[in-house]
């Protein structure tokens, strides 16, 4: 649903059915709403069958990378020799994204059930849910739900009476965006500094505590019980665009839009419908100028590109950006694009873990160049400088944080060059004082 707005008819309500329904938070309430049936069913299936079902559904990682989930699960060793772990990535920190918090706030047991099924499928007896430190309300709600699930026998040494062990441990983050990166998350879980690791080794070989690990996003895991209940074929049929993008996606829309909120759509829905029909379009008298579709780490789209795009992984790529986590940031014609790009660059500079030279220094330098431009001191040479820095920051680091900083900068210069030039020419008032 476009919570806090009522569901729009064009939405496909699956994960968001009980957003706003406080009764869904309790164990009994969830069972009443059909919960824990999927877990019961899954515990009676073989691991292989579960993995095949999820593979067949076409479910892809909803955290941003879009990696086929069933395939990721199949990377885990077939035999459990060393302990396997599932990690649920609830560190939702991507600017513009606020869907996972809703899943945890309104339907905590959906996540618990999804984690339990996934843990069982990959041969893990323990699942760590890494919740971003700032999510105090979701934390409270998830803690209570996990406690209840244990008390009611849904979790523990004899999950739902199956004789199989499923444990969930909640872990709080401490305020670092980089801990949302899967390998940094594993380091953080181990009590170390949240630095991303080099891959190889991949988590399925050596992950948390050096053991085979799978990391999945909250939304991905929340979708799993639905696939078990209604079948892979059903999930696969939810597809309006490219057949490789199936199921539903929770889109967090914010910015210059009439009805910001979370909207659940079938993959492949035209982005134009999402923006104008479901979310109500721009504010009165305004036109949309730019859209960042995937959370801030993807190239900026112009209105034309956005209006022509189908909202699935391939559709957005076709229009020059990426679906990412589907945190849609809408900017209308009052927006100062240079300022917004600076604000994003400042975010990345603040969050860089400082391992890789290009990211550590490049994000900060990019921010400073943009500040000078905003202060009216920019020059033509700054274009090439920013593009050079972005080139050096792309594809050369352990993780993609520096790539993420480069994306809005490169696309911004490409598509909104005139706004930069206005600052440089002095035809626009400086937006900040020079340092």
């Amino acid at each position: 649903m476009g919570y806090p707005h009522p569901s729009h008819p064009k939405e496909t309500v699956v994960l968001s059915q009980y957003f706003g329904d406080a009764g869904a938070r309790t164990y009994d309430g969830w069972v009443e709403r059909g919960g824990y049936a999927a877990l019961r069913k899954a515990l009676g299936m073989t691991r292989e069958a579960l993995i095949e079902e999820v593979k067949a559904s076409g479910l892809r990682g909803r955290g941003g990378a879009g990696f086929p989930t069933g395939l990721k699960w199949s990377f885990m060793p077939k035999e459990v020799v060393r302990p396997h772990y599932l990690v649920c990535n609830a560190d939702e920190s991507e600017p513009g994204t606020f869907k996972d918090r809703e899943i945890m706030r309104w339907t905590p047991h959906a996540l618990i059930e999804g984690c339990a099924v996934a843990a069982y499928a990959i041969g893990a007896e323990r699942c760590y849910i890494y919740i971003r430190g700032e999510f105090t309300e979701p934390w409270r709600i998830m803690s209570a739900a996990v406690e209840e699930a244990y008390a009611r026998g849904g979790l523990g040494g004899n999950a739902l009476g199956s004789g199989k062990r499923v444990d969930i441990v909640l872990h709080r983050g401490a305020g670092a965006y980089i801990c949302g990166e899967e390998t940094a998350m594993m380091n953080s879980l181990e009590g170390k500094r949240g630095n991303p690791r080099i891959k190889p080794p991949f988590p399925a070989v050596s992950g948390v505590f050096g053991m085979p690990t799978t990391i999945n996003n909250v939304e991905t895991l929340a979708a799993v019980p639905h696939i078990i209940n209604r079948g892979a074929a059903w999930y696969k049929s939810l597809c309006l665009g490219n057949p490789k993008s199936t199921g539903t996606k929770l889109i967090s829309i914010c910015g210059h839009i009439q009805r910001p909120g979370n909207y659940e759509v079938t993959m492949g829905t035209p982005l134009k419908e999402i923006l104008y029909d479901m979310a109500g379009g721009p504010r009165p008298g305004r036109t949309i100028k730019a859209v960042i579709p995937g959370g801030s780490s993807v190239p900026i789209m112009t209105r034309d590109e956005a209006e022509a795009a189908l909202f699935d992984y391939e559709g957005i790529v076709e229009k020059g950006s990426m679906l990412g986590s589907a945190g849609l940031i809408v900017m209308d014609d009052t927006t100062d694009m240079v300022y917004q790009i600076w604000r994003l660059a400042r975010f990345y500079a603040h969050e860089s873990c400082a391992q890789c030279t290009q990211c550590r220094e490049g994000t900060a330098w990019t921010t400073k160049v943009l500040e000078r431009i905003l202060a009216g001191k920019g020059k033509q040479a700054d274009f090439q400088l920013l593009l050079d820095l972005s080139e050096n920051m792309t594809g050369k680091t352990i993780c993609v944080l520096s790539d993420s900083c480069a994306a809005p900068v490169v696309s911004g210069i490409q598509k909104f060059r005139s706004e930069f030039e206005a600052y440089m020419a002095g035809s626009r008032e400086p937006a900040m004082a020079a340092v």
Partner: protein
Amino acid sequence: MADELVNVTIEGMTLSVPKGTTIIEAAKQAGVLVPHYCYHPSLPSPAVCRMCLVEVEKAPKLMPACVTAVAEGQVVHVNSDTAKQAREGVLEFLLINHPLDCPICDQSGECELQDYVFQEGRAGTRYQEYAKRYNPVEDFGQDILYVPNRCILCTRCVRFMDDVAHAPILNVSERGDRAFIGISESQRLDHPWAGNVVDLCPVGSLLSKDFLHKARAWDLDKTASVCPGCTQGCNINIDTRDDVVVRIRPRPNVEVNRHFICDYGRMNYRWMNRGDRIEAPLVRDGARHVATDWDTALARLEQVLRGASGSAVILASGRASTESLGLVRRLLERFTVTAALQVPLGDEAPLAGIPDLALRRERAPNLVGGQLLGYSADWTSALRQAASAAVVVVLDADLTPADQAALAGAPGVVVVLGTVLPDGLRDAELVLPVTTMAEENGTYVNRDRRIQRFLQAKSQPGMARPAWWVAGEVLAGPGPSADAPSTAAEAFQMLGEWWPVFAGLTHADLGFTGRVVGSAAPAAAVGGMAR
């Protein structure tokens, strides 16, 4: 264990290396240096500096050579345009916050940042109007200063303390370009091996207070040597400037000390610069000593020995070379010899992450060498014997005033082969100036029976000569000394004639990593060596 070999082409050269070798190590074998900062062969590799990115054909991105293993048929370009551009980018990024401290920075002249920027960095900066981040200098404790402004966050120091010293005192604090190497307020860097972080630091960020502003790297002469601190026998380089030892640094030896030395050995060099040396041979003339030439002194020594018989005692410094210990021992062959080595004791301090590497209790570098030559470590017993011996030879031992007084009162002839004049032995028959290990070539045998060469690092003061030369001259007899050894190598070979454990070995055989002797050898005897 047969290693599967992999064929790889690096910079046009094809070579075969064991499976699992990283590209950076394989490149070394091809004679190609892949520029790097955070990589170090004795540390776990995190691939964070991004300097070592190389172009691998068919790979979608540049690959970090320090963690990417070679694959069959791989073709690697280290100096292609894309790789060089990437490196130029990294160097540019490193320099934007790096202060232009070269004129006042200790590392200048041996700085890896200088080296690579000069080689392939940009000629001018584009970071002109912005302030560099600033943090004040920190005293990390003991000998280490940290200059955060110069730090390039390679994290070698953190990884050394974590993974090699097993003492996680250092960390990386803060994020982004605000990051720096942190140390908790309640801790200091007072680990006995902490000084290695100064060597590991590629730039002048971690500095030795002992060496601070002491000498310029390009003024230094570097000599391969062996640490005279204990029986571990770590390989070192002695850095001198104008004939004064100013610094000791580790020399890599995979078998002995990898890339490290302990702080005790590192600081143990000031004695090499002592100025109060005996500079000429002294012979007793009544109640006083008279300086004379070597011919006269050697003749007197020969005469003294010829006129004595019975027991002899050698009191030798633990720092005496194998050649000196051997030839002096041989000189007294006619006597019943008690030979002892002075071995001060201290606390052991292992380097936890490296097997068999520690500052040893026995603070004598040639204890094992001495033992192979018949010297014991029983100092007190030898001193007691000296009270009644016919001849006592003091080979640069450090005698207390009480010991000197006891010797002075003894009936036997006392011959001192020394570096510093022992005040209490004013009636020694002969006081002959000898060189320290820093002033001569020679060998030590470490606790694993590894014989290792050390080279002369500074010139001999006055008329000082190596002790093996003194003994060798007397052994050869007067007249044209055809048989006397004129080099340490010759002296070493002579040892083989009398002690089978050294037979058949030459200095050249030892190279600069040494050779282990006398371990359980298989049946075949080599050239009469019966052990």
